[in-house]
């Protein structure tokens, strides 16, 4: 089973954006002094470039570890793969904490016990035990769900938004822009998610361009949503932590129909469950490439990884804002290092020699 070009493009356009719709708008509003669109655009442009590079790597039709092995040998490649797997686990931590906060606040009237979030790790263990290529078919299902979910939310929200509040864009100046950019790095590592998929899809003509453009199309949807979000909440956007769950509640029909917007929120939450499990599965895949695919190893590794992340999320349950600020301040460079620099550095690796005629 190989991932098709269409499935990959569905992921970039319709699944990757979902992780940027919860805390990111409020976080950007805070860090970028309410001038949140330009930092978002900058991240999308940078990450689209990284996606372009990561997809170019697929031309070699080799896995991530095989590509590394050309330059560093089998042992070196295995070590680097494990290092990359650790990065993916680190990168998944904030989205998992964010999702936990989202689940506890949006799906329950009163703050429930932490245990309600624990079944998610059963799910990740199950997902990670499956071949990574099975995601392709999942994306086929998720893409329309995401489109319906986001379109529903936007239709219900857009009438309440005052787009005049977004202008003049760029008013916060260079410092606002830079603060905004540095605070949002932890949300942008989608190119890194593509690296474990190398070898599981075929490079077709123009895939890199198509991928980057689809990623930008998803980014356009996120930027539009962020504009709608800011247009609704304006100065209080900083306090609206759960982006797409709060914008639609001012729709006039809600009073009569109840929170029908929850149907769309549920759809996006479903897409998010898969999106947030990707880093974990990518990490398991990298470790499998490093250690070799033994009979029960995928299941064992997926259980270990999921249990480890459950423990980490439990330990950091109350320290989410500290972690978020700390990563934004001290460790933000790790994200572009692995998601932008690594694909760029890997481009010259293992280049096939031109065969003599």
């Amino acid at each position, binding site marked *: 089973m190989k991932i*098709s070009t*269409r*499935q990959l493009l569905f992921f970039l356009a319709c699944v990757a954006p979902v992780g940027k719709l919860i805390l990111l708008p409020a976080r950007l509003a805070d860090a970028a002094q309410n001038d949140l669109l330009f930092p978002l655009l900058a991240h999308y442009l940078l990450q689209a470039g990284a996606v372009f590079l990561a997809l170019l790597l697929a031309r070699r039709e080799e896995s991530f570890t095989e590509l590394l092995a050309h330059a560093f040998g089998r042992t070196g490649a295995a070590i680097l793969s494990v290092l990359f797997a650790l990065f993916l686990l680190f990168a998944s931590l904030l989205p998992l904490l964010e999702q936990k906060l989202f*689940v506890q606040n949006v*799906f*329950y*009237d009163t703050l*429930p016990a932490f245990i*309600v*979030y624990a*079944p*998610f790790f*059963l*799910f990740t263990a*199950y*997902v990670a035990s*499956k071949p990574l290529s*099975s995601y*392709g*078919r*999942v994306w*086929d*299902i998720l893409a329309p769900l995401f489109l319906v979910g986001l379109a529903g939310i936007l239709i219900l929200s857009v009438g309440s938004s005052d787009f005049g509040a977004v202008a003049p864009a760029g008013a916060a100046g260079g410092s606002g822009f830079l603060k905004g950019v540095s605070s949002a790095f932890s949300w942008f590592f989608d190119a890194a998610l593509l690296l474990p998929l190398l070898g599981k899809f075929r490079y077709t003509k123009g895939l890199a361009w198509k991928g980057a453009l689809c990623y930008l199309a998803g980014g356009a949807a996120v930027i539009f949503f962020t504009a709608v979000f800011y247009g609704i909440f304006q100065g209080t956007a900083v306090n609206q932590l759960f982006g797409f769950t709060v914008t639609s509640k001012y729709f006039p029909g809600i*009073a*009569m*129909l*109840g*929170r029908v917007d*929850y149907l769309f929120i*549920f759809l996006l*939450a*479903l897409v998010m*469950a*898969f999106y947030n499990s990707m880093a974990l599965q990518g990490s398991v895949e990298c470790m499998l490439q490093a250690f070799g695919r033994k009979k029960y190893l995928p299941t064992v590794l997926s259980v270990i990884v999921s249990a480890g992340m459950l423990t980490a999320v439990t330990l950091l349950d109350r320290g989410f804002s500290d972690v978020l600020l700390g990563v934004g301040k001290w460790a933000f460079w790790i994200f572009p290092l692995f998601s932008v620099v690594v694909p760029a550095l890997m481009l010259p690796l293992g280049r096939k020699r031109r065969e003599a005629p």
Partner: protein
Amino acid sequence: MKNVAGDLNKTKEALKKLLPAEDILTFGFTSARGMEFCCVFADPITDKELLGEQVIRALSDYDGEAKAEEVAKKLTSPETKTEPSLEALADEVLLGNPVLLFAGMDAAVVVGTKKIFTRAISEPSTDVAVKGPREGFIEDFKTNTSLVRRRFKTGDLRIETSEVGKRSKTVVAVCYLDGIAPASAVEEVKKKLQEIEIDYIPDSSYLTHFLSSRPYSLVKQVGTTEKPDIFCAKLAEGRIGLLVDGSPIALTVPYLLIEDFQSSEDYFVPAYRATFTRLLRLFALIVAIYLPAFYIAAQLFKLQLFPIKLLLTISGSIRDIPFSPSLEMLLVLLVLEVLNEASIRMPKYVGMALSVVGALVLGETAVSAGFVSTPAIIIIAFSGIGLYAVPNLIEQTSVLRLAMLLIAGSVGTYGIILATAFIILYLVTTENFGTPLVAPYAPVVGSDLRDSLIKYNLGSLKQRPKTLRSPNRRRLA
């Protein structure tokens, strides 16, 4: 393997030794010229009238040689063959075909005078069509194959029979259209049938276990139908069908989940109507599985999901209920399942009484006694009706509904979402005979979407489904 001997008595005894059952009878007679014959037959399944007419009367003045070929020519039965092996002869007797032995024989003659017990061809109760053919398969294998053969007047229709079941030796026919069904899938079906080691096959449903790639899965992996028109339509798409002797339910592989949202009538009504009803079936199924679960999750964890006026109505009706919402819903669901089970098995004349007991005593009285609330009854009733919109998936969906209810009662809406994610992943990773279960949606197969939940006009369905990998894709010029 022993063969028949020239000595009639010795052969008869050897055959009786192989078939010691009391209902295996022998009948000896002598022709006018003094040649001795003996018929060995299974009493309950042999047509003795035909045997007398086509064998005994025909041989009454036999004066030819004691050779099986010669004797067979004298018989007036259209189905005869010669067989020297005793074991094969024993098998034929057990199939209902009498074996004719005679003095000095080189082989015995097998005569096809099997007694056929059939019921009349009728419309299957599970697949009623307002428009379109109303014939249904019955238990008789030959009738079923004739229903299929009648619809395909081409030599490309292959009906290849084999025996499955060490003791039942049930006849199973693999039906396909040569050049339309993919050869690899046909071979795989035959291989799987050959590998079955079981004593007894009472019904085609037994075979589904052996044909499934995940035999213990909740998810169905083999298509079923009771209607020959549907069966033939599936063969024409490139599927492989299986008819099992004694079963009115035919099997088809590869199976796609979407098949159960399509009905034969969809092809006899305008495309827009077919599309509407297919979407309606999907909606009904989603409602059937999720409505009770979301109702419970909303009551227990997220009251905001209800509009305020509905919330007031619900809170008024559940105020005095002694059970928790999830327990209340589980009880109502349990009652529905019991009523459902009882109504299927109960004699028809008791059905009316059961309806009265179910609707009035259990429903009305339970609400007025304050055991259960009216909304719970309405929700379960709606869910119960929704389940029957897709009758072929009832076994699966009723289990899923219960599972969702339990998850909703313990984890709430997020549990429902995670369970849905599990189901999606499980479904998309299920394949049988190399065909993804959820195609043409995952993976998306653009051309096959024309006959999925959305149905195009017949003129647009020029090609067979790509998912089925038919070597000849064009079906409409």
